[in-house]
Protein backbone atom coordinates (compact mmCIF):
# COMPACT_ATOMS: atom_id res chain seq x y z
CA UNK A 1 0.00 0.00 0.00
CA UNK A 2 1.16 3.50 -0.83
CA UNK A 3 2.37 5.25 2.30
CA UNK A 4 1.26 8.74 3.25
CA UNK A 5 4.17 11.19 2.98
CA UNK A 6 4.31 13.84 5.70
CA UNK A 7 6.77 16.69 5.32
CA UNK A 8 7.33 19.11 8.18
CA UNK A 9 8.95 22.46 7.46
CA UNK A 10 12.04 23.04 9.57
CA UNK A 11 12.71 26.50 8.17
CA UNK A 12 13.36 29.02 10.93
CA UNK A 13 9.94 30.71 10.81
CA UNK A 14 7.98 27.46 10.97
CA UNK A 15 10.31 25.92 13.52
CA UNK A 16 10.14 28.89 15.91
CA UNK A 17 6.41 29.41 15.46
CA UNK A 18 5.45 25.89 16.57
CA UNK A 19 7.10 23.35 14.27
CA UNK A 20 9.69 22.51 16.93
CA UNK A 21 6.99 21.17 19.21
CA UNK A 22 5.47 19.10 16.41
CA UNK A 23 8.82 17.52 15.59
CA UNK A 24 9.32 16.71 19.27
CA UNK A 25 5.98 14.90 19.34
CA UNK A 26 6.28 13.17 15.97
CA UNK A 27 6.42 9.75 17.60
CA UNK A 28 2.76 10.22 18.46
CA UNK A 29 1.95 10.08 14.74
CA UNK A 30 3.71 6.74 14.50
CA UNK A 31 1.66 5.48 17.41
CA UNK A 32 -1.53 6.61 15.67
CA UNK A 33 -0.80 5.45 12.14
CA UNK A 34 1.92 2.84 12.49
CA UNK A 35 3.99 2.38 9.31
CA UNK A 36 1.29 3.77 7.05
CA UNK A 37 3.05 7.11 7.30
CA UNK A 38 6.56 8.32 6.49
CA UNK A 39 7.73 11.73 7.58
CA UNK A 40 10.71 13.97 7.01
CA UNK A 41 11.87 17.46 7.79
CA UNK A 42 12.26 19.83 4.87
CA UNK A 43 14.17 23.10 4.64
CA UNK A 44 11.98 26.16 4.25
CA UNK A 45 9.03 25.49 1.95
CA UNK A 46 9.01 29.20 1.09
CA UNK A 47 5.44 29.84 2.22
CA UNK A 48 6.39 32.15 5.11
CA UNK A 49 8.22 34.40 2.65
CA UNK A 50 5.16 34.44 0.43
CA UNK A 51 3.39 36.61 2.99
CA UNK A 52 1.68 33.75 4.80
CA UNK A 53 3.77 33.91 7.95
CA UNK A 54 0.70 34.20 10.16
CA UNK A 55 -0.33 30.74 8.90
CA UNK A 56 2.97 29.15 10.02
CA UNK A 57 4.01 26.50 10.85
CA UNK A 58 3.53 24.62 7.58
CA UNK A 59 3.61 20.97 6.75
CA UNK A 60 2.50 18.95 3.77
CA UNK A 61 0.69 15.64 3.51
CA UNK A 62 1.12 13.87 0.15
CA UNK A 63 2.09 17.23 -1.28
CA UNK A 64 -0.96 19.06 0.04
CA UNK A 65 -0.07 22.05 2.25
CA UNK A 66 -1.28 22.08 5.86
CA UNK A 67 -1.42 25.55 7.44
CA UNK A 68 -1.05 26.14 11.19
CA UNK A 69 0.27 22.61 11.25
CA UNK A 70 -0.10 21.42 14.80
CA UNK A 71 0.26 17.69 15.36
CA UNK A 72 -3.53 17.49 15.52
CA UNK A 73 -3.93 19.33 12.20
CA UNK A 74 -1.39 17.02 10.57
CA UNK A 75 -3.15 13.95 11.97
CA UNK A 76 -6.44 15.19 10.52
CA UNK A 77 -4.82 15.70 7.10
CA UNK A 78 -3.35 12.18 7.25
CA UNK A 79 -6.76 10.69 7.98
CA UNK A 80 -8.05 12.61 4.98
CA UNK A 81 -5.30 11.18 2.79
CA UNK A 82 -5.54 7.58 3.93
CA UNK A 83 -6.94 5.19 1.32
CA UNK A 84 -10.54 4.22 1.90
CA UNK A 85 -11.48 7.68 3.07
CA UNK A 86 -14.72 8.78 1.46
CA UNK A 87 -15.97 5.23 0.84
CA UNK A 88 -18.47 5.21 3.62
CA UNK A 89 -16.45 6.49 6.55
CA UNK A 90 -18.19 9.37 8.26
CA UNK A 91 -21.36 8.90 6.26
Amino acid at each position, binding site marked *: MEKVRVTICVG*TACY*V*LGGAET*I*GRIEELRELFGDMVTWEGE*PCMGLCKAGKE*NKAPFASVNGKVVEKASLEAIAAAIREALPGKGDGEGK
Partner: protein
Amino acid sequence: MARENNAVKLRRALLAKLARLMKDGRLAEGVDGIPFEMTREGWEVTGCCVHHDRALIRLRLLAMLGFPAEGLSDVERPLSGYAVSAGAERPRGEFPLTMVTEACNACAKTRYLVTDACQGCLARPCQTGCPKGAVSMLDDRSHIDASKCASCGLCEKACPFHAIVRVPVPCEEACPAGAIRKLEDGTARIDEEKCILCGRCIAACPFGAPVERSEMARVIARLAAPAAEGPASRRAVAIVAPAAMAQFPFPAGKFAASLRALGFDEVVEAAQGADIVAREEAAELARGAPEGGGMLATSCCPSWVRAAGRIPGMAEKLSAAPSPMIAAGRLIKARDPGAFTVFISPCAAKRWEAHRPADGESVIDAVLTSEEIGTMFLAAGIEVNEAQASALSGASEEGRGFGAAGGAANAIAREFEGMKARGLAVPELRATAVSGLNPASLAAIGAMKPAGEGTVTLLEVMSCEGGCLGGPCTIANPKAAKVFLDKYKAGLTA
Protein backbone atom coordinates in the same frame (compact mmCIF):
# COMPACT_ATOMS: atom_id res chain seq x y z
CA MET B 1 -0.24 22.84 30.13
CA ALA B 2 0.61 22.13 26.53
CA ARG B 3 3.80 23.82 25.49
CA GLU B 4 2.30 24.85 22.21
CA ASN B 5 -0.66 27.12 22.82
CA ASN B 6 -2.00 30.49 21.75
CA ALA B 7 -0.28 32.38 24.57
CA VAL B 8 3.11 31.02 23.45
CA LYS B 9 2.32 31.70 19.80
CA LEU B 10 1.31 35.29 20.52
CA ARG B 11 4.48 35.88 22.51
CA ARG B 12 6.68 34.59 19.71
CA ALA B 13 4.80 36.47 17.01
CA LEU B 14 5.17 39.73 18.98
CA LEU B 15 8.86 39.14 19.65
CA ALA B 16 9.38 38.51 15.93
CA LYS B 17 7.56 41.70 14.97
CA LEU B 18 9.61 43.72 17.45
CA ALA B 19 12.85 42.13 16.31
CA ARG B 20 12.05 42.94 12.69
CA LEU B 21 11.36 46.61 13.46
CA MET B 22 14.54 46.88 15.51
CA LYS B 23 16.64 45.24 12.83
CA ASP B 24 15.27 47.70 10.25
CA GLY B 25 15.83 50.64 12.61
CA ARG B 26 12.09 51.40 12.54
CA LEU B 27 11.20 50.56 16.14
CA ALA B 28 9.92 53.99 17.20
CA GLU B 29 7.84 54.55 14.09
CA GLY B 30 6.42 51.05 13.85
CA VAL B 31 5.90 49.77 17.37
CA ASP B 32 2.57 51.46 18.04
CA GLY B 33 1.13 49.79 14.97
CA ILE B 34 1.78 46.23 16.20
CA PRO B 35 -1.36 45.89 18.36
CA PHE B 36 -3.42 46.81 15.29
CA GLU B 37 -1.50 44.58 12.86
CA MET B 38 -1.88 41.62 15.22
CA THR B 39 -5.64 41.99 15.56
CA ARG B 40 -6.37 42.51 11.88
CA GLU B 41 -7.39 39.33 10.06
CA GLY B 42 -8.30 36.08 11.69
CA TRP B 43 -7.86 37.42 15.22
CA GLU B 44 -10.17 35.80 17.74
CA VAL B 45 -11.13 38.25 20.46
CA THR B 46 -10.21 36.85 23.87
CA GLY B 47 -10.93 39.75 26.21
CA CYS B 48 -14.09 41.83 26.38
CA CYS B 49 -13.39 43.39 22.98
CA VAL B 50 -10.65 43.93 20.43
CA HIS B 51 -9.70 47.23 22.09
CA HIS B 52 -8.91 45.44 25.33
CA ASP B 53 -6.90 42.85 23.42
CA ARG B 54 -4.90 45.66 21.83
CA ALA B 55 -4.29 47.27 25.22
CA LEU B 56 -2.95 43.93 26.48
CA ILE B 57 -0.72 43.50 23.44
CA ARG B 58 0.64 47.00 24.10
CA LEU B 59 1.51 45.98 27.68
CA ARG B 60 3.18 42.78 26.45
CA LEU B 61 5.26 44.84 24.04
CA LEU B 62 6.19 47.12 26.92
CA ALA B 63 7.67 44.13 28.81
CA MET B 64 9.40 42.95 25.65
CA LEU B 65 11.02 46.38 25.42
CA GLY B 66 12.26 45.81 28.98
CA PHE B 67 9.75 47.81 31.03
CA PRO B 68 7.36 46.70 33.79
CA ALA B 69 3.84 45.94 32.58
CA GLU B 70 1.91 46.17 35.83
CA GLY B 71 -1.23 48.25 35.88
CA LEU B 72 -2.48 50.41 33.07
CA SER B 73 -0.58 53.52 34.01
CA ASP B 74 0.87 55.65 31.27
CA VAL B 75 -1.74 54.22 28.95
CA GLU B 76 -1.71 57.46 27.00
CA ARG B 77 2.00 57.34 26.32
CA PRO B 78 2.77 55.80 22.96
CA LEU B 79 5.20 52.87 22.86
CA SER B 80 7.43 54.93 20.60
CA GLY B 81 8.21 57.05 23.67
CA TYR B 82 9.47 53.94 25.45
CA ALA B 83 11.28 52.66 22.38
CA VAL B 84 13.78 55.51 22.59
CA SER B 85 15.09 54.34 25.98
CA ALA B 86 14.58 50.60 25.42
CA GLY B 87 18.25 50.16 24.56
CA ALA B 88 19.46 51.64 27.85
CA GLU B 89 21.56 49.56 30.24
CA ARG B 90 19.77 47.44 32.84
CA PRO B 91 20.04 48.77 36.40
CA ARG B 92 21.65 46.17 38.65
CA GLY B 93 19.40 44.08 40.84
CA GLU B 94 16.30 44.74 38.78
CA PHE B 95 13.67 42.01 38.95
CA PRO B 96 13.59 40.30 35.54
CA LEU B 97 9.91 39.30 35.55
CA THR B 98 6.82 41.44 35.47
CA MET B 99 3.09 40.81 35.46
CA VAL B 100 0.66 42.00 32.82
CA THR B 101 -1.80 42.48 35.65
CA GLU B 102 -4.47 43.67 33.24
CA ALA B 103 -4.32 40.22 31.59
CA CYS B 104 -4.55 38.36 34.92
CA ASN B 105 -7.84 36.51 35.23
CA ALA B 106 -7.93 37.01 39.00
CA CYS B 107 -8.69 33.27 39.33
CA ALA B 108 -10.75 32.45 42.41
CA LYS B 109 -8.92 30.50 45.10
CA THR B 110 -8.52 26.78 44.45
CA ARG B 111 -11.88 25.11 44.94
CA TYR B 112 -13.98 22.01 44.27
CA LEU B 113 -16.95 22.26 41.97
CA VAL B 114 -19.84 19.89 41.28
CA THR B 115 -20.41 19.63 37.53
CA ASP B 116 -23.41 18.63 35.40
CA ALA B 117 -22.16 15.05 35.50
CA CYS B 118 -23.65 14.70 39.01
CA GLN B 119 -26.47 12.13 38.94
CA GLY B 120 -27.89 12.86 42.41
CA CYS B 121 -27.36 9.22 43.32
CA LEU B 122 -28.60 7.24 46.28
CA ALA B 123 -25.20 6.46 47.75
CA ARG B 124 -23.95 10.05 47.80
CA PRO B 125 -20.40 9.23 48.88
CA CYS B 126 -19.49 12.90 48.45
CA GLN B 127 -21.90 13.80 51.22
CA THR B 128 -21.19 10.92 53.58
CA GLY B 129 -17.44 11.24 53.15
CA CYS B 130 -17.11 14.97 53.71
CA PRO B 131 -15.41 15.61 57.06
CA LYS B 132 -16.67 19.20 57.16
CA GLY B 133 -20.32 18.57 56.34
CA ALA B 134 -19.97 20.92 53.41
CA VAL B 135 -21.86 18.79 50.88
CA SER B 136 -25.63 18.92 50.72
CA MET B 137 -28.28 18.23 48.06
CA LEU B 138 -29.73 21.12 46.17
CA ASP B 139 -32.17 20.66 43.28
CA ASP B 140 -31.39 16.91 43.13
CA ARG B 141 -27.73 17.63 42.85
CA SER B 142 -24.77 17.69 45.12
CA HIS B 143 -23.71 21.15 46.26
CA ILE B 144 -20.53 22.26 48.05
CA ASP B 145 -20.82 25.04 50.62
CA ALA B 146 -17.66 27.07 49.99
CA SER B 147 -17.71 28.55 53.50
CA LYS B 148 -17.41 25.06 55.05
CA CYS B 149 -15.21 23.37 52.41
CA ALA B 150 -11.61 22.75 53.48
CA SER B 151 -10.49 21.78 49.95
CA CYS B 152 -9.43 18.30 51.11
CA GLY B 153 -10.58 16.70 47.85
CA LEU B 154 -12.24 13.62 49.41
CA CYS B 155 -15.50 14.28 47.54
CA GLU B 156 -13.65 14.41 44.22
CA LYS B 157 -12.08 11.02 44.92
CA ALA B 158 -15.35 9.52 46.19
CA CYS B 159 -17.59 10.36 43.23
CA PRO B 160 -18.04 7.33 40.93
CA PHE B 161 -19.11 9.65 38.07
CA HIS B 162 -16.07 11.94 38.34
CA ALA B 163 -18.62 14.71 38.66
CA ILE B 164 -16.60 16.79 41.11
CA VAL B 165 -13.62 18.69 39.78
CA ARG B 166 -10.82 20.62 41.38
CA VAL B 167 -10.41 24.10 39.92
CA PRO B 168 -6.89 25.26 40.69
CA VAL B 169 -5.12 28.60 40.36
CA PRO B 170 -2.57 27.63 37.68
CA CYS B 171 0.20 30.05 38.68
CA GLU B 172 -0.03 29.13 42.37
CA GLU B 173 -0.12 25.46 41.44
CA ALA B 174 3.00 25.77 39.29
CA CYS B 175 5.05 27.90 41.70
CA PRO B 176 7.42 25.75 43.78
CA ALA B 177 8.28 28.64 46.07
CA GLY B 178 4.90 29.93 47.28
CA ALA B 179 5.73 33.23 45.62
CA ILE B 180 2.33 34.04 44.18
CA ARG B 181 0.33 36.44 46.30
CA LYS B 182 -3.10 37.80 45.56
CA LEU B 183 -4.19 41.40 45.92
CA GLU B 184 -7.65 42.25 47.21
CA ASP B 185 -9.01 42.44 43.67
CA GLY B 186 -7.89 38.83 43.18
CA THR B 187 -5.13 39.57 40.69
CA ALA B 188 -1.84 37.82 41.25
CA ARG B 189 1.55 39.35 41.95
CA ILE B 190 4.97 37.75 42.16
CA ASP B 191 6.60 38.10 45.57
CA GLU B 192 10.08 39.14 44.48
CA GLU B 193 11.67 37.98 47.74
CA LYS B 194 10.22 34.47 47.60
CA CYS B 195 10.40 33.97 43.82
CA ILE B 196 13.17 31.63 42.63
CA LEU B 197 12.77 32.70 38.99
CA CYS B 198 12.13 29.17 37.75
CA GLY B 199 9.76 30.67 35.19
CA ARG B 200 7.09 28.02 35.65
CA CYS B 201 4.32 30.59 36.13
CA ILE B 202 5.16 32.01 32.69
CA ALA B 203 4.35 28.65 31.11
CA ALA B 204 1.49 27.80 33.46
CA CYS B 205 -0.70 30.91 33.25
CA PRO B 206 -3.42 30.35 30.63
CA PHE B 207 -3.77 34.13 30.29
CA GLY B 208 -0.07 34.73 29.75
CA ALA B 209 0.07 37.29 32.56
CA PRO B 210 3.57 36.67 33.99
CA VAL B 211 6.15 37.77 31.43
CA GLU B 212 9.84 38.50 31.15
CA ARG B 213 11.37 41.91 30.80
CA SER B 214 13.39 41.28 27.68
CA GLU B 215 16.77 42.75 26.83
CA MET B 216 16.36 42.12 23.13
CA ALA B 217 16.12 45.83 22.29
CA ARG B 218 19.43 46.56 23.96
CA VAL B 219 21.20 43.69 22.25
CA ILE B 220 19.87 44.47 18.78
CA ALA B 221 20.77 48.15 19.21
CA ARG B 222 24.28 47.15 20.20
CA LEU B 223 24.68 44.67 17.34
CA ALA B 224 23.64 47.38 14.89
CA ALA B 225 25.72 50.22 16.40
CA PRO B 226 28.20 51.64 13.90
CA ALA B 227 31.84 51.25 14.86
CA ALA B 228 32.46 54.97 15.36
CA GLU B 229 29.97 55.22 18.20
CA GLY B 230 31.23 52.24 20.16
CA PRO B 231 33.87 52.13 22.89
CA ALA B 232 37.43 50.96 22.14
CA SER B 233 36.44 47.32 21.75
CA ARG B 234 32.93 46.81 20.58
CA ARG B 235 33.17 43.15 19.88
CA ALA B 236 29.86 41.45 20.60
CA VAL B 237 30.45 38.01 22.08
CA ALA B 238 27.67 35.43 22.41
CA ILE B 239 28.09 32.93 25.24
CA VAL B 240 25.84 29.98 24.46
CA ALA B 241 24.56 27.54 27.06
CA PRO B 242 24.61 23.84 26.05
CA ALA B 243 20.81 23.72 26.26
CA ALA B 244 20.61 26.66 23.84
CA MET B 245 22.90 24.84 21.38
CA ALA B 246 20.38 22.00 21.50
CA GLN B 247 17.27 23.93 20.45
CA PHE B 248 17.57 23.40 16.69
CA PRO B 249 17.67 20.06 14.83
CA PHE B 250 20.93 21.10 13.16
CA PRO B 251 24.59 20.87 14.21
CA ALA B 252 25.69 23.40 16.84
CA GLY B 253 28.19 24.82 14.34
CA LYS B 254 25.28 26.01 12.21
CA PHE B 255 23.69 27.65 15.23
CA ALA B 256 26.97 29.41 15.99
CA ALA B 257 27.22 30.58 12.39
CA SER B 258 23.65 31.89 12.56
CA LEU B 259 24.57 33.95 15.62
CA ARG B 260 27.43 35.46 13.62
CA ALA B 261 24.98 36.28 10.88
CA LEU B 262 22.94 38.21 13.47
CA GLY B 263 25.99 40.37 14.11
CA PHE B 264 27.92 38.65 16.89
CA ASP B 265 31.68 38.84 16.35
CA GLU B 266 32.44 35.73 18.36
CA VAL B 267 30.56 32.74 19.74
CA VAL B 268 31.83 31.08 22.91
CA GLU B 269 30.49 27.86 24.38
CA ALA B 270 29.33 28.30 27.95
CA ALA B 271 30.52 24.70 28.28
CA GLN B 272 34.05 26.15 28.38
CA GLY B 273 33.01 27.82 31.62
CA ALA B 274 31.43 24.56 32.74
CA ASP B 275 34.79 22.83 32.36
CA ILE B 276 36.31 25.37 34.76
CA VAL B 277 33.42 24.94 37.19
CA ALA B 278 33.74 21.15 37.18
CA ARG B 279 37.44 21.42 38.05
CA GLU B 280 36.80 23.89 40.87
CA GLU B 281 33.97 21.87 42.37
CA ALA B 282 35.98 18.64 42.15
CA ALA B 283 38.78 20.42 44.03
CA GLU B 284 36.33 21.55 46.72
CA LEU B 285 35.15 17.96 47.10
CA ALA B 286 38.72 16.66 47.23
CA ARG B 287 39.32 18.93 50.20
CA GLY B 288 36.36 17.25 51.85
CA ALA B 289 33.97 20.20 51.32
CA PRO B 290 34.62 21.40 54.89
CA GLU B 291 32.38 24.49 54.57
CA GLY B 292 29.38 22.29 53.92
CA GLY B 293 30.27 19.63 56.48
CA GLY B 294 31.18 17.06 53.83
CA MET B 295 28.47 18.08 51.41
CA LEU B 296 28.78 20.23 48.30
CA ALA B 297 25.80 21.53 46.35
CA THR B 298 26.26 22.71 42.76
CA SER B 299 25.94 26.42 42.07
CA CYS B 300 25.39 26.40 38.30
CA CYS B 301 21.59 26.87 38.43
CA PRO B 302 20.64 30.39 39.59
CA SER B 303 17.07 29.36 40.36
CA TRP B 304 18.40 26.64 42.67
CA VAL B 305 20.83 29.13 44.22
CA ARG B 306 17.86 31.35 45.10
CA ALA B 307 15.94 28.37 46.50
CA ALA B 308 18.95 27.15 48.47
CA GLY B 309 19.11 30.42 50.36
CA ARG B 310 15.78 29.51 51.92
CA ILE B 311 16.76 26.04 53.10
CA PRO B 312 18.38 26.21 56.56
CA GLY B 313 22.07 25.28 56.38
CA MET B 314 22.10 24.97 52.59
CA ALA B 315 23.82 28.26 51.75
CA GLU B 316 27.07 27.00 53.32
CA LYS B 317 26.90 23.87 51.22
CA LEU B 318 26.66 25.75 47.92
CA SER B 319 29.87 25.59 45.94
CA ALA B 320 31.97 28.74 45.85
CA ALA B 321 32.58 28.12 42.15
CA PRO B 322 30.93 30.54 39.76
CA SER B 323 28.29 29.36 37.31
CA PRO B 324 29.49 28.34 33.83
CA MET B 325 28.02 31.61 32.50
CA ILE B 326 30.08 33.74 34.89
CA ALA B 327 33.20 31.62 34.36
CA ALA B 328 32.93 32.04 30.59
CA GLY B 329 32.20 35.76 31.00
CA ARG B 330 35.37 36.19 33.09
CA LEU B 331 37.44 34.44 30.40
CA ILE B 332 36.21 36.85 27.76
CA LYS B 333 36.44 40.04 29.85
CA ALA B 334 39.96 39.10 30.97
CA ARG B 335 41.26 39.22 27.42
CA ASP B 336 38.89 41.88 26.11
CA PRO B 337 37.44 44.16 28.83
CA GLY B 338 35.47 46.17 26.29
CA ALA B 339 33.63 43.17 24.86
CA PHE B 340 29.85 43.16 24.97
CA THR B 341 28.94 39.74 26.36
CA VAL B 342 25.50 38.26 25.74
CA PHE B 343 24.50 35.03 27.42
CA ILE B 344 21.97 32.83 25.61
CA SER B 345 19.99 30.07 27.34
CA PRO B 346 16.44 28.78 27.88
CA CYS B 347 16.50 30.08 31.47
CA ALA B 348 14.39 32.77 33.18
CA ALA B 349 16.80 33.21 36.10
CA LYS B 350 20.07 33.93 34.28
CA ARG B 351 19.03 37.53 33.71
CA TRP B 352 18.90 37.96 37.47
CA GLU B 353 22.24 36.23 37.95
CA ALA B 354 23.93 38.36 35.29
CA HIS B 355 22.68 41.63 36.75
CA ARG B 356 22.61 40.73 40.45
CA PRO B 357 23.92 43.52 42.59
CA ALA B 358 25.73 41.41 45.18
CA ASP B 359 29.13 40.73 43.66
CA GLY B 360 29.39 43.93 41.67
CA GLU B 361 30.99 41.88 38.93
CA SER B 362 29.84 42.73 35.47
CA VAL B 363 31.05 40.05 33.13
CA ILE B 364 27.73 39.48 31.38
CA ASP B 365 26.25 42.57 29.74
CA ALA B 366 22.94 41.14 28.57
CA VAL B 367 20.94 37.92 28.60
CA LEU B 368 18.73 36.55 25.85
CA THR B 369 16.53 33.49 25.90
CA SER B 370 16.56 30.75 23.27
CA GLU B 371 13.10 31.88 22.30
CA GLU B 372 14.23 35.47 21.76
CA ILE B 373 17.18 34.33 19.64
CA GLY B 374 14.83 32.14 17.59
CA THR B 375 12.58 35.10 16.83
CA MET B 376 15.64 37.23 15.98
CA PHE B 377 16.68 34.60 13.40
CA LEU B 378 13.14 34.66 12.07
CA ALA B 379 13.12 38.45 11.81
CA ALA B 380 16.49 38.54 10.10
CA GLY B 381 15.51 35.81 7.63
CA ILE B 382 18.31 33.55 8.82
CA GLU B 383 17.85 29.88 7.95
CA VAL B 384 19.86 27.97 10.56
CA ASN B 385 19.95 24.89 8.35
CA GLU B 386 21.49 26.78 5.45
CA ALA B 387 24.28 28.37 7.51
CA GLN B 388 27.85 27.30 6.78
CA ALA B 389 28.73 25.60 10.05
CA SER B 390 31.53 27.40 11.89
CA ALA B 391 33.99 25.78 14.27
CA LEU B 392 33.04 25.76 17.94
CA SER B 393 35.17 27.46 20.57
CA GLY B 394 36.01 24.15 22.21
CA ALA B 395 34.81 22.45 25.36
CA SER B 396 34.73 18.93 26.72
CA GLU B 397 31.88 16.52 26.18
CA GLU B 398 31.26 16.61 29.95
CA GLY B 399 31.13 20.43 30.02
CA ARG B 400 28.55 20.35 27.24
CA GLY B 401 26.59 17.89 29.33
CA PHE B 402 25.75 20.59 31.92
CA GLY B 403 22.59 21.31 29.94
CA ALA B 404 20.81 18.19 31.14
CA ALA B 405 20.06 16.80 34.59
CA GLY B 406 22.93 14.73 35.92
CA GLY B 407 25.37 16.41 33.55
CA ALA B 408 27.08 18.60 36.12
CA ALA B 409 27.46 15.73 38.59
CA ASN B 410 28.90 13.57 35.82
CA ALA B 411 31.45 16.21 34.82
CA ILE B 412 32.50 16.85 38.43
CA ALA B 413 32.79 13.12 39.15
CA ARG B 414 34.99 12.69 36.07
CA GLU B 415 37.31 15.45 37.30
CA PHE B 416 37.31 13.87 40.74
CA GLU B 417 38.23 10.45 39.33
CA GLY B 418 41.00 12.15 37.37
CA MET B 419 42.46 13.54 40.60
CA LYS B 420 42.33 10.09 42.16
CA ALA B 421 44.04 8.56 39.13
CA ARG B 422 46.82 11.10 39.48
CA GLY B 423 47.49 9.67 42.92
CA LEU B 424 45.88 12.36 45.04
CA ALA B 425 44.38 11.23 48.33
CA VAL B 426 40.69 11.99 47.97
CA PRO B 427 37.67 10.93 49.99
CA GLU B 428 35.02 8.65 48.56
CA LEU B 429 32.43 10.44 46.43
CA ARG B 430 28.67 10.01 46.58
CA ALA B 431 26.66 11.93 44.01
CA THR B 432 22.94 12.68 43.87
CA ALA B 433 21.15 14.63 41.16
CA VAL B 434 17.79 16.31 41.64
CA SER B 435 15.91 18.11 38.88
CA GLY B 436 12.50 19.70 38.91
CA LEU B 437 12.06 21.78 42.06
CA ASN B 438 8.70 21.40 43.77
CA PRO B 439 7.62 21.33 47.42
CA ALA B 440 8.35 17.59 47.67
CA SER B 441 11.82 17.70 46.09
CA LEU B 442 12.70 20.81 48.12
CA ALA B 443 11.72 19.00 51.32
CA ALA B 444 13.76 15.94 50.29
CA ILE B 445 16.78 18.15 49.61
CA GLY B 446 16.36 19.84 52.99
CA ALA B 447 16.43 16.46 54.71
CA MET B 448 19.61 15.26 52.99
CA LYS B 449 22.59 14.59 55.24
CA PRO B 450 26.27 14.17 54.33
CA ALA B 451 27.20 10.49 54.03
CA GLY B 452 29.70 10.68 56.89
CA GLU B 453 33.37 10.05 57.72
CA GLY B 454 35.70 9.49 54.79
CA THR B 455 33.11 10.40 52.17
CA VAL B 456 31.96 13.57 50.47
CA THR B 457 28.49 14.08 49.04
CA LEU B 458 27.88 15.95 45.81
CA LEU B 459 24.36 17.30 45.40
CA GLU B 460 23.50 18.47 41.90
CA VAL B 461 20.29 20.47 41.71
CA MET B 462 18.66 21.90 38.61
CA SER B 463 15.45 23.83 39.00
CA CYS B 464 13.83 22.64 35.78
CA GLU B 465 12.66 19.11 35.16
CA GLY B 466 15.37 17.31 33.21
CA GLY B 467 17.75 20.25 33.62
CA CYS B 468 18.10 23.34 31.40
CA LEU B 469 16.57 21.47 28.42
CA GLY B 470 13.28 21.71 30.32
CA GLY B 471 13.67 25.46 30.80
CA PRO B 472 10.78 27.89 30.41
CA CYS B 473 12.22 29.70 27.36
CA THR B 474 12.98 26.76 25.10
CA ILE B 475 11.86 26.31 21.51
CA ALA B 476 12.39 22.58 21.10
CA ASN B 477 10.41 19.92 22.89
CA PRO B 478 12.70 18.68 25.72
CA LYS B 479 12.66 15.11 24.42
CA ALA B 480 13.88 16.19 21.00
CA ALA B 481 16.35 18.63 22.57
CA LYS B 482 17.95 15.76 24.51
CA VAL B 483 18.79 14.09 21.18
CA PHE B 484 20.21 17.37 19.81
CA LEU B 485 22.27 17.84 23.01
CA ASP B 486 23.79 14.38 22.64
CA LYS B 487 24.86 15.26 19.09
CA TYR B 488 26.37 18.53 20.31
CA LYS B 489 28.22 16.70 23.10
CA ALA B 490 29.69 14.29 20.55
CA GLY B 491 30.73 17.27 18.42
CA LEU B 492 28.77 16.04 15.40
CA THR B 493 28.88 18.42 12.47
CA ALA B 494 26.23 16.81 10.29
